[in-house]
């Protein structure tokens, strides 16, 4: 079976891409543990803590990312540079356990996967 990288690169709530990406990710996680999750570019906004999407009539799917641990998906990475450029420091981030990596290392991790899809 292929290993698969799911890449989140759009900001949450403004489009449904992240939410539908997470749905696809969880459906795949039910069949395989060989999955990597990457937050790159505006996708790192998924990692900001205490979001209140209900105020704009959007669903709070961000909390659902916590299911990743239950599915034994441990390879979760964020782009350090994207976080820095958007002013998202460690104290602003939620409790999702992940590794923030510089670009070179991020590319190295990505290259370990057979397939990638973007959301």
């Amino acid at each position: 079976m292929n290993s698969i990288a799911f890449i989140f690169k759009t900001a949450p709530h403004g489009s449904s891409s992240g939410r539908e990406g997470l749905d696809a990710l969880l459906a795949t996680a039910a069949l395989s543990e060989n999955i990597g999750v990457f937050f790159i570019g505006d996708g790192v906004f998924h990692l900001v803590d205490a979001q209140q999407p209900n105020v704009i009539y959007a669903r709070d799917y961000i909390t659902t990312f916590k299911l990743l641990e239950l599915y034994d998906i441990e390879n979760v990475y964020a782009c350090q540079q994207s976080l820095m450029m958007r002013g998202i420091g460690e104290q602003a981030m939620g409790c999702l356990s992940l590794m923030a990596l510089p670009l070179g290392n991020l590319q190295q991790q990505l290259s370990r996967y057979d397939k990638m899809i973007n959301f």
Partner: protein
Amino acid sequence: MRYALLVTGPAYGTQNATSAWMFAKALLKAGHSIISIFFYQEAVNNANRLISPASDEHNLINEWVKLSREENIALNICVSAALRRGVVDQDHAQDGLYNFHPQFNFSGLGELATSLLTCERVVQF
């Protein structure tokens, strides 16, 4: 090689779905096989049989249907993404109204996951 295609763009408005269709035809011509065409996100709109392009314009829905019939390829639409966007089949009809083209079939994300895990190549549009 065994390909899986993931389409995420609508029939009209962006080029994604047209590119996917052209790529699918090119794959078959080159002797590859397509194990799955999965329509997700805005691409569920490709199954809307009421889409009515001007008469001198390309009708992508008809082309998908033709490709599916001639090559015996399933056109899988994510049901939850479709219902949220008003692409509705007879089973989910409201006041007798539905717009789902019968050549497509409602499918789940498990189908997408299986194709991602088992294909030799996946190409996302």
